[in-house]
């Protein structure tokens, strides 16, 4: 019997996979708690959700997905020894991360203009908690992508890309639950 074979099959850094699983569990628990609290006031949650800017969030999905593609492409190029292309792709992925944060900032500013804060309704408490925590990961990811574009060993690029794909993965699960399910 070979107990270690499943772990050995994992591509990339094992600790990054521990992080991926941990983050998915944290965000998954947060999203389920969000839906659990929604049961106490479904009409209020629907009314609050109507204030969200779905077009901006959908645009952000495209931005993050494209950024993830560039990070994956960077690893592909680095493994083919195309270092400059890999660095440029990582830089472009980081730039799209900044675009994501800018759109998110516009979304938050729009809420503030409407007088909506984290304590306006339990919906917004979860909204700011979940999207804010995700945005914090985007900030960390942008810094990490820039770091690995500079220190561009294949192992570093792979670890940076793994982190970024985790951020992408969390968003594709968070976006439909918070923004689309009405």
């Amino acid at each position: 019997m070979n107990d270690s074979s499943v772990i050995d099959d994992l591509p990339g850094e094992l600790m990054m996979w521990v992080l991926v699983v941990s983050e998915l569990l944290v965000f998954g628990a947060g999203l389920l708690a969000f839906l659990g609290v929604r049961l106490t006031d479904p009409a209020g949650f629907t009314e609050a959700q109507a204030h969200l800017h779905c077009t901006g969030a959908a645009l952000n999905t495209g931005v993050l997905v494209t950024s993830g593609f560039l990070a994956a492409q960077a690893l592909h190029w680095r493994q083919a020894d195309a270092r400059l292309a890999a660095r440029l792709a990582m830089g472009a992925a980081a730039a799209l991360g900044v675009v994501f944060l800018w759109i998110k900032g516009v979304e938050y500013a729009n809420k503030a203009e409407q007088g909506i804060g984290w304590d306006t309704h339990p919906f917004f408490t979860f909204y700011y908690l979940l999207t804010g925590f995700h945005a914090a990961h985007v900030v960390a990811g942008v810094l990490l992508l820039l770091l690995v574009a500079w220190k561009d060993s294949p192992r570093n690029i792979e670890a940076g890309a793994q982190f970024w794909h985790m951020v992408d993965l969390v968003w594709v699960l968070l976006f439909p639950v918070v923004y689309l399910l009405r």
Partner: protein
Amino acid sequence: MRVPLFSMPLVKAWMNLIGLSAGSAVLTMGGLSAEMTALAILLIALAKARVILVRYLGLDEAPGVLRGFTLVLGLFAVLVLGLYLV
């Protein structure tokens, strides 16, 4: 300078993700019941997650782990749908 080529599997994965995202957007425009819309949106989210896991995170090299992720994400989607429909 040699211009490196894009990886076609990565390009296809990106196109799939953009297409699935567009599909989600179309679903929110109406036409289906709330329950069917929710089911379709969650299935699309699962499909997107699987593309990221397989193509970007390379879990096609670790089918056992991929099955584990698929199972747990599937259970998550069932819980989400259950809580949404209660």
